[in-house]
């Protein structure tokens, strides 16, 4: 049974003239790693907010269509309940952290849920090791690096033990090291069976691990296909203002110059194999 079901969802923000989402439909099965890419204004963050119930319960607007998260309707189920199914981590790490140290940050949602102290303690210790921040347990987030802050944000979201984690451009304000930390964390969660949705600008990252990529533009889904198929559409991606991986671009350029390439490489290793073959085929 799909863990996320979105059926013909449209949404317009209260003060906006145009719809932010236009008839979007998709399903996600448990355990999938889905990438979401698209230019600014495509509706990616709006979609994340719809899935987590923030739209329409906190952010007002006109929402139509059906959204079911593990069978729960996202427009009527209390946001706090949805947070126990979907964890949302957003771009600005600093604005998602509210407490003066990491421990407080992680236990805060659990305190709010009224969980017994032993349960909180158990989850806290598990998560501190999962995100590798035990040594910083009592640090004020001001002292943490960008990557560490985002790991805390992920930790706080995971505290509620959601089955789905949504990373909405969680690494776009981080340096490459910070981004790598967060991505590694996402991959390890996937290995543990969590469903991950990752909104990214950097399609190279998705090439490493996403099973499937959804390409959005101006409120609609243009493509929803396995990663290879999406990355092969180099021209279409460029048109949308998405920079395809350079390895794919190179193969595509060769193809355009008349060289048969076969399946388009998406990783460096594949590309090196391909190009070595081609340059020796002379």
């Amino acid at each position: 049974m799909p863990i996320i079901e979105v059926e013909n969802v449209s949404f317009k923000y209260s003060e906006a003239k145009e719809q932010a989402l236009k008839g979007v439909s998709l399903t996600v099965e448990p355990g999938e790693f889905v990438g979401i890419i698209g230019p600014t204004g495509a509706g990616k963050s709006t979609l994340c907010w719809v899935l987590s119930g923030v739209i329409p319960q906190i952010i007002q607007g006109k929402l139509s269509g059906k959204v079911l998260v593990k069978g729960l309707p996202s427009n009527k189920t209390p946001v706090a309940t949805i947070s126990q199914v979907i964890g949302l981590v957003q771009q600005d790490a600093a604005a998602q952290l509210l407490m003066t140290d990491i421990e407080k940050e992680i236990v805060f949602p659990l305190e709010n849920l009224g969980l017994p102290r032993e349960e909180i303690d158990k989850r806290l210790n598990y998560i501190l090791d999962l995100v590798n921040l035990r040594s910083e347990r009592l640090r004020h987030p001001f002292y943490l690096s960008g990557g560490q802050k985002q790991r805390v944000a992920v930790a706080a979201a995971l505290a509620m033990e959601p089955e789905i984690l949504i990373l909405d451009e969680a690494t776009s304000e981080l340096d490459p090291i910070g981004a790598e930390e967060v991505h590694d964390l996402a991959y390890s969660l996937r290995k543990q069976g969590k469903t991950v949705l990752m909104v990214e600008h950097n399609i190279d990252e998705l090439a490493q691990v996403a099973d499937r990529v959804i390409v959005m533009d101006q409120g609609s889904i243009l493509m929803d296909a396995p990663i290879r198929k999406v990355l092969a559409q180099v021209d279409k991606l460029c048109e949308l203002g998405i920079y395809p991986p350079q390895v794919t671009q190179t193969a595509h350029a060769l193809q355009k110059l008349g060289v048969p390439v076969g399946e388009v490489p998406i990783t460096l290793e594949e590309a090196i194999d391909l190009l070595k073959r081609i340059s020796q085929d002379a």
Partner: protein
Amino acid sequence: MAFVLQMLEMGKRKSWFHSLNPNAKLIWWLFMIVVPILVTNPFFLLAVTVAIWLMSIGAGIGKQMYKFLIVTYPIMVGFIVILWPFFYAATPDQHFLFNWSVFHYSLEGFIYALAMGMRIVLALTACTFFVMTTDLMDLASSLGEFLQNKLKISYMYPLMIISSFKFLPELGGDYQTIVESFKSRAMDLDKGSFAQRLKKYIPIAIPLIDSMLRRATQIAIALELKAFNSANKSRTFYRHHPFRWRDVVFMLLGVLTIVLSILIKQLGWGAVEMYL
């Protein structure tokens, strides 16, 4: 803003005093504030102040308290000692340094001023000791726990205080960046008259307020996502502060000081006038 962070860090040290229940320390502090109201005898006040200093050495914060108070004592107390004697009613039996109708300065006036200063010194010392031995965030949450679970008052207020301490350093950083961006556009904050310089801070306030407003919306959403509900009648508080014998002992110290104050007041030794 580094000061704010330092203050928070101080409270996380380890000592017998740091381990006390924050509520117990709060009550002790309240007693210490009342003492200088009851008593103006500078020697008594001095004795209590010295006792707090000794405790601060025991708590391992002696050096830090010294660094802070060596600057604050003169600022807070200095002008009292200098100015008060001018307002002290002049009577013929006093020993005057000079006495030219409105401008008079007598020995008695000076002693009185010292006593008044001593009251502030004690209050200041007690406050500094309290802040430096208490994890303020623990205090906020333990007070919050008391308010929420015993008095059914929403945890919202202590939460706002805790969050302020989280965001203040960041706001400070934003402020720094904003000032730098204005300097980079040739606006010099150090030139011009006071009024002119004040005017220059108006454009700076706008991006700062804007960043605060943006944060406010994000915080509101984050609170909802984290299941915070101000209408909740009860919530769990993870950090548990048991009330132990040492907390009772410490509060009794405060009680003892109050009792002594009342005692000497009854015995007529409570006021500085006895030395004049």
